[in-house]
Protein backbone atom coordinates (compact mmCIF):
# COMPACT_ATOMS: atom_id res chain seq x y z
CA UNK A 1 0.00 0.00 0.00
CA UNK A 2 1.47 3.30 -0.98
CA UNK A 3 1.75 5.93 1.71
CA UNK A 4 2.49 8.84 -0.52
CA UNK A 5 -0.01 11.62 -0.92
CA UNK A 6 -1.11 11.90 -4.51
CA UNK A 7 -0.89 15.20 -6.28
CA UNK A 8 -3.84 16.13 -8.43
CA UNK A 9 -3.15 17.66 -11.78
CA UNK A 10 -5.41 20.61 -12.38
CA UNK A 11 -5.30 22.12 -15.84
CA UNK A 12 -1.94 20.51 -16.27
CA UNK A 13 -0.46 22.34 -13.28
CA UNK A 14 0.82 20.48 -10.29
CA UNK A 15 -1.38 21.62 -7.45
CA UNK A 16 1.02 21.05 -4.62
CA UNK A 17 4.60 20.91 -5.77
CA UNK A 18 6.24 21.39 -2.42
CA UNK A 19 5.61 17.96 -1.03
CA UNK A 20 8.92 17.56 0.75
CA UNK A 21 8.12 14.50 2.72
CA UNK A 22 11.06 12.61 1.36
CA UNK A 23 8.70 10.45 -0.61
CA UNK A 24 8.35 10.03 -4.33
CA UNK A 25 5.66 12.31 -5.71
CA UNK A 26 2.92 10.40 -7.37
CA UNK A 27 0.56 12.17 -9.70
CA UNK A 28 -2.94 10.83 -9.70
CA UNK A 29 -5.27 11.21 -12.58
CA UNK A 30 -8.97 10.69 -12.38
CA UNK A 31 -9.10 7.49 -14.36
CA UNK A 32 -7.35 5.75 -11.54
CA UNK A 33 -3.90 5.52 -13.03
CA UNK A 34 -0.90 6.36 -10.93
CA UNK A 35 2.05 8.01 -12.47
CA UNK A 36 5.53 8.06 -11.09
CA UNK A 37 6.88 11.54 -11.44
CA UNK A 38 10.27 10.35 -12.59
CA UNK A 39 8.48 8.92 -15.59
CA UNK A 40 6.81 12.27 -16.11
CA UNK A 41 10.16 14.05 -16.24
CA UNK A 42 11.54 11.57 -18.73
CA UNK A 43 8.58 11.60 -21.05
CA UNK A 44 8.14 15.34 -21.17
CA UNK A 45 11.85 16.01 -21.50
CA UNK A 46 12.47 13.44 -24.15
CA UNK A 47 9.66 14.13 -26.52
CA UNK A 48 11.56 14.34 -29.77
CA UNK A 49 8.78 15.39 -32.06
CA UNK A 50 6.84 18.49 -31.31
CA UNK A 51 3.44 16.92 -31.76
CA UNK A 52 1.77 13.59 -31.63
CA UNK A 53 -0.56 12.72 -34.43
CA UNK A 54 -4.03 11.58 -33.65
CA UNK A 55 -5.21 8.74 -35.80
CA UNK A 56 -8.88 7.95 -35.80
CA UNK A 57 -9.20 9.82 -32.57
CA UNK A 58 -7.29 7.15 -30.76
CA UNK A 59 -3.83 8.50 -31.05
CA UNK A 60 -1.54 9.21 -28.19
CA UNK A 61 -1.81 12.57 -26.58
CA UNK A 62 1.08 14.89 -25.98
CA UNK A 63 -0.14 15.24 -22.44
CA UNK A 64 2.48 13.96 -20.05
CA UNK A 65 -0.04 12.60 -17.62
CA UNK A 66 -1.89 10.44 -20.08
CA UNK A 67 1.24 9.17 -21.74
CA UNK A 68 2.75 8.12 -18.47
CA UNK A 69 -0.66 6.96 -17.35
CA UNK A 70 -1.05 4.37 -20.03
CA UNK A 71 2.39 2.98 -19.40
CA UNK A 72 2.09 2.92 -15.64
CA UNK A 73 -1.38 1.48 -15.66
CA UNK A 74 -0.03 -1.51 -17.46
CA UNK A 75 2.60 -2.02 -14.80
CA UNK A 76 0.58 -0.92 -11.80
CA UNK A 77 -0.21 -4.45 -10.72
CA UNK A 78 3.38 -5.47 -10.43
CA UNK A 79 4.64 -1.98 -9.92
CA UNK A 80 4.16 -1.48 -6.23
CA UNK A 81 7.61 -2.68 -5.32
CA UNK A 82 9.13 -0.44 -7.96
CA UNK A 83 7.35 2.59 -6.57
CA UNK A 84 8.31 1.87 -3.01
CA UNK A 85 11.95 1.96 -3.99
CA UNK A 86 11.42 5.58 -5.00
CA UNK A 87 10.38 6.58 -1.50
CA UNK A 88 13.83 7.57 -0.39
CA UNK A 89 14.31 10.39 -2.88
CA UNK A 90 16.04 13.44 -1.46
CA UNK A 91 14.06 16.63 -1.02
CA UNK A 92 16.38 18.61 -3.29
CA UNK A 93 15.67 16.26 -6.18
CA UNK A 94 11.99 16.70 -5.52
CA UNK A 95 12.29 20.44 -5.77
CA UNK A 96 14.09 20.09 -9.06
CA UNK A 97 11.44 17.72 -10.31
CA UNK A 98 8.71 20.05 -9.20
CA UNK A 99 10.43 22.92 -10.94
CA UNK A 100 10.79 20.95 -14.17
CA UNK A 101 7.18 19.90 -13.91
CA UNK A 102 6.06 23.49 -13.45
CA UNK A 103 8.21 24.65 -16.34
CA UNK A 104 6.78 21.95 -18.57
CA UNK A 105 3.31 22.69 -17.27
CA UNK A 106 3.63 26.39 -17.98
CA UNK A 107 4.30 25.72 -21.66
CA UNK A 108 1.04 26.44 -23.43
CA UNK A 109 -0.75 23.51 -24.99
CA UNK A 110 -1.91 24.29 -28.46
CA UNK A 111 -4.08 22.10 -30.64
CA UNK A 112 -4.09 22.46 -34.41
CA UNK A 113 -7.12 20.95 -36.08
CA UNK A 114 -6.40 20.61 -39.78
CA UNK A 115 -6.67 17.91 -42.41
CA UNK A 116 -4.40 19.29 -45.12
CA UNK A 117 -0.86 17.91 -44.81
CA UNK A 118 0.81 20.90 -46.41
CA UNK A 119 -1.06 23.31 -44.15
CA UNK A 120 -0.04 21.26 -41.13
CA UNK A 121 3.61 21.29 -42.15
CA UNK A 122 3.63 25.03 -42.70
CA UNK A 123 1.72 25.85 -39.51
CA UNK A 124 3.93 23.62 -37.39
CA UNK A 125 7.03 25.25 -38.76
CA UNK A 126 5.65 28.72 -38.11
CA UNK A 127 4.69 27.81 -34.58
CA UNK A 128 8.14 26.38 -34.01
CA UNK A 129 9.56 29.70 -35.16
CA UNK A 130 7.40 31.34 -32.54
CA UNK A 131 8.68 28.96 -29.91
CA UNK A 132 5.67 26.68 -29.63
CA UNK A 133 4.77 23.12 -30.31
CA UNK A 134 1.34 21.86 -31.25
CA UNK A 135 -0.74 18.74 -31.06
CA UNK A 136 -2.49 17.82 -34.28
CA UNK A 137 -6.01 16.57 -34.88
CA UNK A 138 -7.21 15.88 -38.41
CA UNK A 139 -10.91 16.49 -37.99
CA UNK A 140 -13.55 17.66 -35.55
CA UNK A 141 -13.98 14.27 -33.89
CA UNK A 142 -10.27 13.94 -33.20
CA UNK A 143 -10.30 17.47 -31.87
CA UNK A 144 -13.09 16.67 -29.42
CA UNK A 145 -11.28 13.55 -28.24
CA UNK A 146 -8.10 15.55 -27.78
CA UNK A 147 -9.86 18.27 -25.82
CA UNK A 148 -11.55 15.65 -23.68
CA UNK A 149 -8.20 14.13 -22.92
CA UNK A 150 -6.15 17.25 -22.24
CA UNK A 151 -6.47 20.83 -21.17
CA UNK A 152 -5.54 23.06 -24.06
CA UNK A 153 -4.78 26.74 -23.89
CA UNK A 154 -5.57 27.44 -27.51
CA UNK A 155 -7.18 25.67 -30.44
CA UNK A 156 -6.59 26.57 -34.06
CA UNK A 157 -9.52 25.11 -35.93
CA UNK A 158 -9.72 24.65 -39.66
CA UNK A 159 -13.28 25.18 -40.79
CA UNK A 160 -13.58 22.74 -43.71
CA UNK A 161 -12.72 19.20 -42.68
CA UNK A 162 -14.11 15.74 -43.31
CA UNK A 163 -15.99 13.69 -40.71
CA UNK A 164 -16.83 16.70 -38.54
CA UNK A 165 -16.10 20.26 -39.63
CA UNK A 166 -14.71 23.05 -37.51
CA UNK A 167 -17.94 24.94 -37.04
CA UNK A 168 -19.82 21.91 -35.74
CA UNK A 169 -16.92 20.80 -33.60
CA UNK A 170 -16.74 24.22 -31.98
CA UNK A 171 -20.46 24.18 -31.26
CA UNK A 172 -20.06 20.83 -29.53
CA UNK A 173 -17.07 22.00 -27.53
CA UNK A 174 -18.98 25.07 -26.33
CA UNK A 175 -21.89 22.84 -25.37
CA UNK A 176 -19.48 20.75 -23.32
CA UNK A 177 -18.14 23.88 -21.63
CA UNK A 178 -21.61 25.05 -20.74
CA UNK A 179 -23.13 21.75 -19.68
CA UNK A 180 -20.12 19.88 -18.34
CA UNK A 181 -20.99 16.87 -20.45
CA UNK A 182 -20.49 15.62 -23.98
CA UNK A 183 -24.10 14.62 -24.62
CA UNK A 184 -24.39 16.86 -27.65
CA UNK A 185 -21.25 15.37 -29.15
CA UNK A 186 -22.44 11.83 -28.50
CA UNK A 187 -25.73 12.70 -30.15
CA UNK A 188 -23.78 14.03 -33.11
CA UNK A 189 -22.06 10.68 -33.41
CA UNK A 190 -18.80 11.07 -31.55
CA UNK A 191 -17.74 7.78 -29.97
CA UNK A 192 -19.25 7.63 -26.49
CA UNK A 193 -16.76 5.14 -25.10
CA UNK A 194 -13.73 7.15 -25.99
CA UNK A 195 -15.22 10.26 -24.45
CA UNK A 196 -16.22 8.52 -21.26
CA UNK A 197 -13.09 6.48 -20.77
CA UNK A 198 -10.51 9.12 -21.35
CA UNK A 199 -11.77 12.21 -19.66
CA UNK A 200 -9.35 14.85 -18.50
CA UNK A 201 -8.85 14.98 -14.74
CA UNK A 202 -10.40 18.33 -14.05
CA UNK A 203 -12.14 20.38 -16.67
CA UNK A 204 -10.89 23.91 -16.95
CA UNK A 205 -13.46 26.54 -16.06
CA UNK A 206 -11.89 28.98 -18.47
CA UNK A 207 -13.33 29.31 -21.94
CA UNK A 208 -11.08 27.58 -24.43
CA UNK A 209 -9.96 30.05 -27.08
CA UNK A 210 -10.88 28.59 -30.45
CA UNK A 211 -9.54 30.40 -33.48
CA UNK A 212 -10.95 29.56 -36.90
CA UNK A 213 -8.66 29.18 -39.87
CA UNK A 214 -10.86 30.13 -42.71
CA UNK A 215 -10.56 30.34 -46.46
CA UNK A 216 -12.92 33.28 -46.15
CA UNK A 217 -15.57 32.04 -48.50
CA UNK A 218 -19.27 32.51 -47.92
CA UNK A 219 -19.58 29.26 -46.03
CA UNK A 220 -16.59 30.12 -43.91
CA UNK A 221 -17.31 33.76 -43.29
CA UNK A 222 -16.33 35.42 -40.06
CA UNK A 223 -20.01 35.71 -39.14
CA UNK A 224 -20.39 31.96 -39.44
CA UNK A 225 -17.35 31.47 -37.26
CA UNK A 226 -18.59 33.75 -34.50
CA UNK A 227 -22.08 32.30 -34.72
CA UNK A 228 -20.68 28.84 -34.02
CA UNK A 229 -18.70 29.90 -30.99
CA UNK A 230 -15.33 30.76 -32.35
CA UNK A 231 -13.48 33.57 -30.67
CA UNK A 232 -11.64 34.86 -33.66
CA UNK A 233 -10.41 33.85 -37.06
CA UNK A 234 -7.28 33.75 -39.16
CA UNK A 235 -7.83 33.91 -42.88
CA UNK A 236 -5.75 31.61 -44.99
CA UNK A 237 -3.05 31.42 -45.97
CA UNK A 238 -1.68 31.33 -42.46
CA UNK A 239 1.35 33.56 -41.99
CA UNK A 240 3.84 34.00 -39.20
CA UNK A 241 2.48 37.44 -38.41
CA UNK A 242 -1.11 36.23 -38.16
CA UNK A 243 -0.09 33.46 -35.80
CA UNK A 244 2.06 35.79 -33.75
CA UNK A 245 -0.81 38.22 -33.25
CA UNK A 246 -3.14 35.38 -32.38
CA UNK A 247 -0.78 34.06 -29.72
CA UNK A 248 -0.25 37.51 -28.30
CA UNK A 249 -3.95 37.99 -27.93
CA UNK A 250 -5.01 34.58 -26.65
CA UNK A 251 -2.08 33.12 -24.79
CA UNK A 252 -1.10 34.60 -21.48
Amino acid sequence: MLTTSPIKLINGFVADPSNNTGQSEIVQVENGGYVDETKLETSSGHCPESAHQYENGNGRCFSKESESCSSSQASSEGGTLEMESELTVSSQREEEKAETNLKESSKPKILLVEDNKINIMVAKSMMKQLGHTMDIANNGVEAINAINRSSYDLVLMDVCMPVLDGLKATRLIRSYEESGNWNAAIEAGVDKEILENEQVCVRSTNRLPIIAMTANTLAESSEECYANGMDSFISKPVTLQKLRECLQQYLH
Partner: protein
Amino acid sequence: MQRQVALIKQSLFDQGYLDEQFMELEELQDDANPNFVEEVSALYFKDSARLINNIDQALERGSFDFNRLDNYMHQFKGSSTSIGASKVKTECTKFREYCRAGNAEGCLRTFHQLKKEHSTLRKKLEHYFQLARQAGPKETARRPK
Protein backbone atom coordinates in the same frame (compact mmCIF):
# COMPACT_ATOMS: atom_id res chain seq x y z
CA MET B 1 25.73 31.39 -59.39
CA GLN B 2 23.84 32.83 -56.51
CA ARG B 3 22.90 35.78 -58.65
CA GLN B 4 21.48 33.38 -61.20
CA VAL B 5 19.42 31.72 -58.49
CA ALA B 6 18.15 35.08 -57.32
CA LEU B 7 17.19 36.05 -60.85
CA ILE B 8 15.28 32.83 -61.42
CA LYS B 9 13.40 33.32 -58.21
CA GLN B 10 12.58 36.89 -59.10
CA SER B 11 11.22 35.85 -62.47
CA LEU B 12 8.97 33.28 -60.84
CA PHE B 13 7.45 36.09 -58.84
CA ASP B 14 7.36 38.55 -61.72
CA GLN B 15 5.64 36.08 -64.00
CA GLY B 16 3.07 35.32 -61.37
CA TYR B 17 3.94 31.70 -60.72
CA LEU B 18 4.58 32.44 -57.07
CA ASP B 19 3.14 34.96 -54.66
CA GLU B 20 4.22 36.41 -51.31
CA GLN B 21 3.22 33.25 -49.44
CA PHE B 22 6.30 31.60 -50.93
CA MET B 23 8.36 34.27 -49.21
CA GLU B 24 6.66 33.39 -45.93
CA LEU B 25 7.97 29.88 -46.36
CA GLU B 26 11.46 31.13 -47.08
CA GLU B 27 11.36 33.04 -43.82
CA LEU B 28 11.00 29.72 -42.06
CA GLN B 29 14.27 28.43 -43.43
CA ASP B 30 17.27 28.60 -41.16
CA ASP B 31 20.34 26.60 -40.31
CA ALA B 32 18.21 24.05 -38.52
CA ASN B 33 15.84 23.76 -41.49
CA PRO B 34 17.90 24.70 -44.52
CA ASN B 35 15.69 22.90 -47.03
CA PHE B 36 12.29 23.67 -45.63
CA VAL B 37 10.84 25.25 -48.76
CA GLU B 38 12.03 22.40 -50.93
CA GLU B 39 10.54 19.91 -48.47
CA VAL B 40 7.18 21.63 -48.40
CA SER B 41 7.27 21.89 -52.15
CA ALA B 42 7.99 18.18 -52.46
CA LEU B 43 5.09 17.36 -50.18
CA TYR B 44 2.84 19.68 -52.14
CA PHE B 45 3.64 18.07 -55.47
CA LYS B 46 3.27 14.60 -54.05
CA ASP B 47 -0.08 15.43 -52.52
CA SER B 48 -1.38 17.37 -55.49
CA ALA B 49 -0.37 14.58 -57.87
CA ARG B 50 -2.67 12.35 -55.88
CA LEU B 51 -5.49 14.87 -56.14
CA ILE B 52 -4.96 15.29 -59.87
CA ASN B 53 -5.15 11.55 -60.24
CA ASN B 54 -8.39 11.40 -58.29
CA ILE B 55 -9.91 14.16 -60.34
CA ASP B 56 -8.70 12.60 -63.59
CA GLN B 57 -10.36 9.34 -62.68
CA ALA B 58 -13.55 11.04 -61.61
CA LEU B 59 -13.72 12.96 -64.89
CA GLU B 60 -12.86 9.90 -66.99
CA ARG B 61 -15.79 8.06 -65.50
CA GLY B 62 -17.92 10.64 -67.19
CA SER B 63 -20.21 11.15 -64.24
CA PHE B 64 -19.79 14.68 -63.04
CA ASP B 65 -20.14 14.52 -59.31
CA PHE B 66 -19.61 18.25 -58.89
CA ASN B 67 -19.71 18.00 -55.13
CA ARG B 68 -16.92 15.49 -55.04
CA LEU B 69 -14.89 17.37 -57.60
CA ASP B 70 -15.34 20.54 -55.62
CA ASN B 71 -14.08 18.79 -52.49
CA TYR B 72 -10.95 17.63 -54.24
CA MET B 73 -10.39 21.08 -55.60
CA HIS B 74 -10.92 22.63 -52.19
CA GLN B 75 -7.99 20.58 -50.94
CA PHE B 76 -5.94 21.45 -53.99
CA LYS B 77 -6.63 25.13 -53.64
CA GLY B 78 -5.78 25.02 -49.95
CA SER B 79 -2.38 23.49 -50.52
CA SER B 80 -1.64 25.73 -53.46
CA THR B 81 -2.50 28.78 -51.41
CA SER B 82 -0.28 27.64 -48.57
CA ILE B 83 2.83 27.44 -50.70
CA GLY B 84 2.12 30.47 -52.83
CA ALA B 85 1.43 28.65 -56.10
CA SER B 86 -0.42 31.56 -57.56
CA LYS B 87 -1.37 30.45 -61.08
CA VAL B 88 -2.37 26.99 -59.90
CA LYS B 89 -4.53 28.60 -57.23
CA THR B 90 -6.27 30.73 -59.85
CA GLU B 91 -7.14 27.67 -61.91
CA CYS B 92 -8.44 25.93 -58.80
CA THR B 93 -10.76 28.84 -58.14
CA LYS B 94 -12.03 28.78 -61.74
CA PHE B 95 -12.62 25.06 -61.57
CA ARG B 96 -14.66 25.43 -58.40
CA GLU B 97 -16.77 28.12 -59.98
CA TYR B 98 -17.55 25.79 -62.87
CA CYS B 99 -18.38 23.05 -60.37
CA ARG B 100 -20.85 25.29 -58.62
CA ALA B 101 -22.34 26.28 -61.95
CA GLY B 102 -22.59 22.61 -62.91
CA ASN B 103 -20.61 23.37 -66.04
CA ALA B 104 -18.89 20.12 -67.07
CA GLU B 105 -17.27 21.59 -70.16
CA GLY B 106 -15.81 24.44 -68.16
CA CYS B 107 -14.47 21.99 -65.59
CA LEU B 108 -12.72 19.93 -68.21
CA ARG B 109 -11.17 22.94 -69.90
CA THR B 110 -10.01 24.45 -66.66
CA PHE B 111 -8.64 21.18 -65.39
CA HIS B 112 -6.55 20.84 -68.52
CA GLN B 113 -5.14 24.31 -67.93
CA LEU B 114 -4.60 23.57 -64.27
CA LYS B 115 -2.52 20.50 -65.04
CA LYS B 116 -0.42 22.57 -67.41
CA GLU B 117 0.24 25.23 -64.79
CA HIS B 118 0.95 22.62 -62.18
CA SER B 119 3.44 20.84 -64.39
CA THR B 120 5.14 24.09 -65.39
CA LEU B 121 5.50 25.18 -61.78
CA ARG B 122 6.88 21.83 -60.81
CA LYS B 123 9.58 21.99 -63.47
CA LYS B 124 10.48 25.57 -62.66
CA LEU B 125 10.71 24.90 -58.94
CA GLU B 126 12.73 21.76 -59.44
CA HIS B 127 15.17 23.73 -61.54
CA TYR B 128 15.25 26.53 -58.98
CA PHE B 129 15.89 24.24 -56.01
CA GLN B 130 18.56 22.35 -57.89
CA LEU B 131 20.43 25.54 -58.67
CA ALA B 132 19.92 26.87 -55.17
CA ARG B 133 21.47 23.76 -53.70
CA GLN B 134 24.41 24.03 -56.03
CA ALA B 135 24.84 27.70 -55.26
CA GLY B 136 25.24 26.87 -51.60
CA PRO B 137 23.37 27.54 -48.40
CA LYS B 138 23.83 31.31 -48.48
CA GLU B 139 21.00 31.80 -50.89
CA THR B 140 18.40 29.65 -49.22
CA ALA B 141 19.14 29.93 -45.52
CA ARG B 142 17.96 33.36 -44.50
CA ARG B 143 18.28 33.29 -40.79
CA PRO B 144 21.62 32.92 -38.99
CA LYS B 145 21.45 30.78 -35.87
